[in-house]
């Protein structure tokens, strides 16, 4: 009963979180899951362990699953184009299978 789908994983600064959520809602992602983390890339080292009032530079890992892989890719591309010129972040796309495909 498992059917193929696509998971898009967006790793970004929390600064962008609300905007990415909005974009996902508008473009029709049926849901998403977020976990908080830390990381290192080309810019700032972001450690979750250091106390910080300013949480906007923390890393969030947002993933959304869609049945329609083409649509998922388009959304991913749109996020990359809109935000990741100016701000930190990476996007990966992976093939998965989902149970209960009617949800996605």
């Amino acid at each position, binding site marked *: 009963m498992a059917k193929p789908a696509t998971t898009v994983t967006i790793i970004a600064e929390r*600064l962008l979180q609300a905007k990415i959520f909005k974009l996902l809602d508008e473009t029709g992602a049926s849901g998403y899951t977020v976990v908080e983390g830390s990381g290192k890339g080309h*810019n*700032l*080292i972001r450690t979750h*362990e*250091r*106390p*910080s*009032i*300013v949480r*906007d*530079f923390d890393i969030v890992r947002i993933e959304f699953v869609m049945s329609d892989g083409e649509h998922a890719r388009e959304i991913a591309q749109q996020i990359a184009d809109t935000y990741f010129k*100016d*701000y930190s972040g990476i996007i990966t796309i992976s093939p998965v299978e989902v149970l209960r495909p009617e949800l996605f």
Partner: protein
Amino acid sequence: MDLLANFASSFVSQLQSPTLAFLIGGMVLAATGSKLAIPDAVYRFIIFVLLMSIGLHGGMEIREADPTELALPALFAALIGVIAVLLGAQTLGRLPGVSKDDAYATAGLFGAVSASTLAVAMVVLEEKEIPFEAWAPALYPFMDIPALILAIVLASLAKAKQSGEKAKRVAIGEIIKDSLRSSALSALLLGLAIGFIAEPREVHEGFYDLLFRGFLSVLMLVMGMEAWARLSELRRVAHWYAAYAVIAPITHGLIGFGLGYIAHVLVGFSPGGVIILAIIAASNSDISGPPTLRAGIPGANPSSFIGASTSVGTPIAIAVCVPLFVALAEVVFGL
């Protein structure tokens, strides 16, 4: 001579002050690789309690204050924020290896205000029994917001000029909102409002004020640890940042002191108030500033502006500027 002797003795006594001992203790911990860490949740609660306490106290006192007295110092506060940014853009911004964006962001941060440094100033004034206007902490946003706005506007203009396009309109309303919504200013303003309206003396004395000094000591520890930890980031960028971060607080503080003195002469602004104005001028933003500037000047590298302010600017403001301006006031006003 007197000033120097006074400053020396004030500085030495400040060095033995618990506040500074915790700040230095934090640096030593970080330098030796200690695993001791103040949990993030506790740190954020501490900031909340400190700013609520300052706000509540101010709000209760303002009930008896004459609001028009605030006008000139508030104007001067805004002026200092503006001057600080312009100075930073003209000095740091012309140095080699410093990008325009980074210069504007750094200048914005040093023009803006640190809530933690403000808290230190208030404890020191209380210890020294130097009175000040209850509304003095409310000068904070008057300096903070213009500095942030100006830095972002200048960066945006510079970018437009460079690219030959017309400057994107800077959403000034957004910057003001962003700043007022930051956890630091929100807590301070909330405290002022609740203090003014509900006059919660009991809960202020029995809780917020009770915990003030202890929480401040923990905050100093965190700031010391952070200062050291960020040094590595500062090292990755041009040395000019470090130099700027030493000189700017003292310069801004002196401008603040000068304008404060004028307000003293013109409208009777108290010596304690002058010290507070000088110290918030000397301080640099650690809460509302970084994310606002990050959002407003996306091309700026946070490593440079946060590094300079956390690692050098804040310790200088607390360890050098606080005793300096207290000593200066003692000489100037004969306290």
